[in-house]
């Protein structure tokens, strides 16, 4: 008995040793920074010293209207981009997944190309197009007699434009995942539905969408996390403007950390973003784990 326990312990030890490097990296580069971030959020940090200030940095945030603007904007981005991505990807994937393999590949490739292009490059291309002074869109608008068009300089249009740019760049990933999931749905379910005389719409609604639920949960979670961190497109297209109309939490964090050198306040924003991500992701993860 004792011998067997020793053998098990030895075998487990090998396994633990194998995961140890990964665990060390995980602890060092993920867990430690989280705790360090929480600690820093309670300090006022100068070049020369750190002073414990309790929750002062959080109070500073709650008294700053730009922080609330960033919070609301980030939530708006998350809601719209995630809904658009999931909805559009479901629509495209369910429309083509059972078509000719070449056609599926073509559609998949077409939507995936923007995902492969760097967000920096995409943002710069959009910036050239949308520049109010010498951009292509403004040029055509002027030529068509629409006057000066400044989509990025108008607080009413800047958010929809950023939502569209981000959605157009990211949706390819979701389409690929959905098509793969839909191809994996057992064929006999569709055959049974055909025998029962179900319409295409009913097949999508009753069979396809429930069958790819784990994929939907996964896409939703990764998109929530990705959009919460939206930064590059803001930095390159609008700089958070006009008048902070498109500022996001990540951009606000960046400004505090690297432009204002308020590392404590920036850490507090990071902690709040971490909590929001947890709150948004836990229910989704829970439902995914329960299903399994």
């Amino acid at each position: 008995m004792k011998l067997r326990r020793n053998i098990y312990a030895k075998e487990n030890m090998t396994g633990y040793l194998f995961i140890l490097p990964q665990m060390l990296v995980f602890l060092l580069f993920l867990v430690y920074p989280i705790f360090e971030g929480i600690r820093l959020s309670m300090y006022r940090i100068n070049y020369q010293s750190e002073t414990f200030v309790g929750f002062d940095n959080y109070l500073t945030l709650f008294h700053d209207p730009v922080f609330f603007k960033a919070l609301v904007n980030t939530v708006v981005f998350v809601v719209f981009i995630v809904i658009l991505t999931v909805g559009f990807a479901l629509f495209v994937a369910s429309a083509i997944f059972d078509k000719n393999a070449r056609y599926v590949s073509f559609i998949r490739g077409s939507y995936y190309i923007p995902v492969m292009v760097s967000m920096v490059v995409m943002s710069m291309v959009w910036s050239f197009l949308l520049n109010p002074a010498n951009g292509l869109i403004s040029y055509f608008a002027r030529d068509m007699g629409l006057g000066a068009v400044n989509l990025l300089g108008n607080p009413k249009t800047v958010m929809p434009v950023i939502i569209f740019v981000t959605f157009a760049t990211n949706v390819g990933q979701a389409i690929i995942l959905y098509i793969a999931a839909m191809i994996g749905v057992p064929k006999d379910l569709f055959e049974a539905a055909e025998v029962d005389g179900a319409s295409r719409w009913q097949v999508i609604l009753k069979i396809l969408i429930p069958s790819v639920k784990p994929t939907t949960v996964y896409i939703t979670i990764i998109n929530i996390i990705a959009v919460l961190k939206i930064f590059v497109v803001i930095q390159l297209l609008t700089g958070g403007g006009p008048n902070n109309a498109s500022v996001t939490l990540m951009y606000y964090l960046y400004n505090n950390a690297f432009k204002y050198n308020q590392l404590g306040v920036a850490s507090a924003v990071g902690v709040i973003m971490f909590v929001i991500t947890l709150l948004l992701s836990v229910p989704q993860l829970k439902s995914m784990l329960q299903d399994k």
Partner: protein
Amino acid sequence: MNNKRLFTTMTALLLIVSLMAGCSGNNKAGNGAASSNAGKGGKEKVEITAWLTPQWKGVLNASEQGADYDSFLKYAAEKFAAQYDKYDASVKVEVIAGDQRDQLLNVNLSSNTPPDVFFESVFPMGDYVHRGAMVPLTDIVDDEAKKDIDQSFWDAVTFGDDIYFYPFQHNPGTLVYNADMFRAAGLEKFVGSENEIKTWTMDEYQQILDALKTNLPKDKYPNAYPMALYAVNNQGDTWNLAYLRTFGSPFFNNEGNIVLDDEKGAKAAAWLKKLYDGGYTNPGAESVSSNDANAMFQNQQLGISFTNPILFSNMKTNMENGTSPKFDVRLANIPSESGDPLSFTYVVGASVFQSGNAKKIEVAKDFVKFFSTDPELVKSSKNGIPVRSSVAEELKGENPLFAAYDANSKYLFNFTGNVPGYSQLREVLYPELQALYLGQKTPEQMVKDYQTNGNKVIEQNKAGSVIYNK
């Protein structure tokens, strides 16, 4: 079986050890700390780093073979090392992008690896003095240098009682205009001579804008606008700060606080809004950058834009090279209600960061003194405007504009006020200008909010300033 298990266990252990060794590597080496290794001639080897933002290409000028932004400092480093007898010194020169300066410096300061020497405009670097990150250079400035460089430049680099930057050259900000466009709009009488910085009154300026708006031949200058206006970010914001002084606002008071919220400040903001709404500027100022404006001017889409000697010389070089359309460009002052030109300058010079290593600081200070005083090297300051009267006098034949810039120097205002938190303060201005141009705030509200928010930033930074809390 056992051998196999032993092999896998050993491999895993090896991986862990190598990983830990990698993580715990002595970063002092990366720090470039003065090592005790003996260098050339038995002297101790000391390696320092020098950063600069792009200023000018080449040692003396951009036409040299292989001219680049780091040519000057690299040449200065070689010359310095060859004659330096205290240590076996070497200088590693790196060019960093101007818009990444604060990010790179903050990250490197947090990890205690700042550059030893930084060559840059003084105005965005004042914050680092207030934060205690810089070493005073008062002891390396001698009387001869003090006599040769005008007091206004020493004032710009003095924080509290100490000098923190060694002035090398300066880049006065002015307006630039397309003289061909002026002539096409019937504005010959407002065109100054080639080597003049023309001063217009406010009335004349308005006449110019009116004529550029209505009289320009549309076939020759399609989609052209009278003047540049931009507020998407903090780039080129000094011209916006100058415009806000147009009606006589002193901007800062003696305590280093903003005092824009008065009749003069509101009038200047209202003037900007009137120009924007009246179609006298490029459209979409709230989302146009100074780079966009500069490109538009070079494409003859703007009659009047902003410039400094480096931008002006690059613009002329681009025209000569055929990389941008060639036209007659000339300089003008920013007008003001008083009739006196609004004049400001970016003093460019070297500073030394507090690395905590006495030997590196010593070498860095010696290096700064060397290239800021060496008779051959200081001639490179002609790429901007030399701060040294001796150099300006010697080279006035090469650049006749030196005299015109010199005549402007009595109108210079210190646009930073040397206040703590100036970098953060810059982030307060452009959102307010955006709100003004979008009509979200009245001119009165805009100057009031800018003053309130700006003074809040200054107060916060005063609390942490080593200069204010000595």
